């Protein structure tokens, strides 16, 4: 069969075929483009998360003891890792893995001689925590948290909330809340 290129019908069919082909290609490309954008956003958010709790600055060590609270803080946050689970609009679900500070602190506190004056007991716990973090004598805990993100001057930034902060510190802050509550309750009931 001969194709008559002068025939308008032929031209119309041909044009329709090309448009259809382009459309099919376009539709097939959408997930790939979206995936590309998401990956870019995820990478930006991952960077933003990292920036939020890392510090290049070494804590100043102006005392003889090597386990100042600032040193311990850095030792905790240096060990934190995280995974971005999902990213919907301005909400991100993260899985934060950090030293299980709640467990570690309670375990160490249990071993402290109860007859020690409170300030010595506290110093001793701090020293033991410092050692445990240095020697790897701790377990990790993974906590899923949801945080808001927002774009500021073209860069993604996270908006930290309490769950986020608590997860980075290995649930340490919830322990603090419990201790405050217990202290007040004890004071009242005594």
């Amino acid at each position, binding site marked *: 069969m001969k194709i008559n290129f002068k025939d308008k019908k032929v031209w119309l069919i041909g044009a329709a075929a090309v448009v259809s082909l382009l459309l099919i290609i376009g539709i097939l490309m959408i997930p790939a483009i979206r995936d590309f954008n998401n990956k870019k956003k995820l990478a930006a958010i991952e960077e933003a998360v990292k920036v939020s*709790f890392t510090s290049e*600055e070494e804590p100043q060590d102006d005392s003889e003891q090597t386990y100042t609270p*600032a040193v311990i*803080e*850095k030792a905790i946050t240096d060990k934190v890792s995280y995974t971005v689970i999902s990213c919907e609009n301005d909400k991100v679900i993260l899985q934060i893995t950090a030293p299980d500070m709640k467990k570690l602190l309670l375990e160490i506190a249990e071993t402290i001689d109860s007859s020690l004056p409170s300030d010595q007991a506290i110093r001793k*716990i701090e020293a033991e925590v410092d050692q445990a973090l240095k020697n790897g004598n701790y377990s990790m805990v993974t906590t899923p948290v949801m945080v808001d993100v927002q774009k500021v*001057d073209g860069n993604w930034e996270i908006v930290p909330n309490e769950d986020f902060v608590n997860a980075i510190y290995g649930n340490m802050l919830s322990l603090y809340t419990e201790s405050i509550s217990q*202290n*007040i309750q004890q004071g009242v009931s005594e």
Partner: protein
Amino acid sequence: MKTHGKKILSVLLILALLINASVVCFADDAPKYQTVRCISNLCDKTRVDLLLHQDQLYISIEDAAEFSGYQWKDSQFERSGEKIKPITHTIEQKEWLELESGMEQLYTEVVQVGDALIFRGLETTFKECIKKTDAILTQYRVDLTQGFAGTVGYVGAVVFNIASQGKIFSRISGRHSEEQYKKIISRMVEGEEEVLSIVQEGYSLLDKLDTIGTIEGLDFSLNDGALKIISNGPSSDSAAVIHALNKTKDPLGTMFESIGGSKDFSLKGLDIVSQLELYQYFDSLIGCGQLYADMFSYTYGSSNFKKDEYIPKAARQPIEALTKYYNSTDYLKLLAGYLNEEGKTVFFSSADDLLETAVLKHFFSSSGAIIIPIAQYALRKSYDFLFDGVSHKADYIEESKRISELQAGIMKLYRKYKKDPASAINTKYAAMLYIRCAHIDYKLSVDGGMIEESSVINKYYNEAFNEIAAISDRDLTKKISNKKISADKLPKIDMEMEKTGLTRFLGKTVADVKRELGKNCVFYSDAGATFMSYESGERFGLDTQLLSPSNAAIIREVISFNETPLLGALRGNMTYGELVSLLGKETVGEKPEGYYDDMYARMEYNLTFNYNGHKVFYTWRDKDPESSPSSIASIVESNIEMNYTRDQADRQKLQKEQNGEFEVGSSITTKISDRITLTGRIEHVGLNYQYFLRLNEGISIKLVDDLYYETFGTLSEEEFKCKVLYFYDSAEEKYDFDKLNTNECVVTASLWDYRGGEDLFLSDPVIMMDGKEAPLK
């Protein structure tokens, strides 16, 4: 011989005179017993037997022990481990103390008021105070780093240290992020008018450069944003400034009011709560100054920060002026340093100490002027607005840390004070501050979302605070100086006469009366009081308003209409002449002048006098007292309030009530002459021109004047202290605060701390300001 005889006669005469004189002297020197009326805050005794010897009154050691709260043991007085061995006198084989000096040694005040002696012993000794405060203070530690006990407590302290000393925590908790600032400043735009007024208020303070006011002996001026106070008296040195300032009740308050009407800056001597607030003010001032500077340097310095977008146009100039001032002045640093070092002593200082410390810290210029930076006032106002409602756990940790440091300082002072009885008063206030710190910390922890608010916990804090506050300052200062009491001026009570007539029932119970006079009596109510009456004419006023009183009700008044004797020869039906011939005009007084009683349409003559330690009333109705027997006569126990005899719990409750701290559902019994201080807020309700004094927990008192006309007009809401001079319900003396809305009471009040100025409109001067009539319009 004749001469000799004369001589002998003369000698005998002289001898006789001498002997007579000595007899007279001996007669005067012979100890005499004298029973007098008395009341005491520590025991229920209403009579005390004193011994008069050589013009000195003596009290027995047993009575002295009762009135002072000490115990007589092994030849000395003892109480809670404290031993006192006063000088005693053995008279007629019994041990006595000189009334005034002896009681003084037992820290017991004794004064004569009217016809009775009032003994006021220590309700709490220093050792008892320490025992109480020690027990309470161990329960109210804020000290996060040292005070926590137990496993969870220790790790809480460790967490606190890490969070507060670490470098990352404050950053990731979002405290100083630019976004935070932007949000805050965005809020400024939303509340443009409000922030403008706040910022401009501060700015206007800086803008006033002329002399702005004077108080006696001082000129105030503002120069370069600092308040200068200069003595305008003969001497212009610092001492003259302090001297002039000390003459004012509230020097700093006066100064700050004079520069801009700031009502919240106040230092009032030993008003401890105000001082704590003052410290908080200073403390937040330092913190806010730094935060404010941080915020503005961050936002102003940031290239991303668009001033036009965030700052209202009219606010820019004032903000920039304030920021410039903040950056240029070193007064803030000076103030911060001063407060960091000396702030804690502010709690325990009077205005004198504060100002003297200011001298030491070079707050005075070489010319003697005192210089106080005031830009912080504006900064604080702006900060309060900007950070209102912004609450993070990080904020709580910061605040809590400051409070725990403060509390640790207070504990050090407390330990120092408790070693020295001379500083007993400071021990009390240090303990109160300590608890207040704990309470503030608790409230912060609630605000910071650390724990749930609990009314029970609040109550515990308040109870602990009130328990210490209830310890009398007077007990701890022990400044007692008893004046000589003259036996001549102290009416003696004839105890034999006390046993005669109906007076013998005074102070006894309904049961005692029934036992003697029988059970055939009726009870009735008249003018809010309850009476017990016998057909034979005996009548008794009771201390209760109940129409069916218990047998334990006390007889406070005895009444006679007829021949029934009241006391000695006094009866219910006597003429004025009979009374005068019986007791003398000196005791009875002048013949009463009558008045016409509109209510009963009759003439009435009333006579009142004191006799044998009692208040006696005689009334003639439509009769001439001179020629006709009285219609009614009555005797009440005394003209002295018997409140002192209430037991310890009652007295504590009374003290709370006097402070305006009424519990819901509590009732108080008052007499017309009772004075109660209520603290509350006056509110004007609806169009009925009614005013209510709002107390706590929804309790209110309707304010009406003593003629039962309600106050009217408009009155701006104003916090004030209201001293109730007359508090009396015509229907029943016992007042139930739960039912206040359905009752009317008469309240004549005086206001102080009233700042409503011209907004006060009243019908009659039922409300007085500082002893003057309130402005009427």
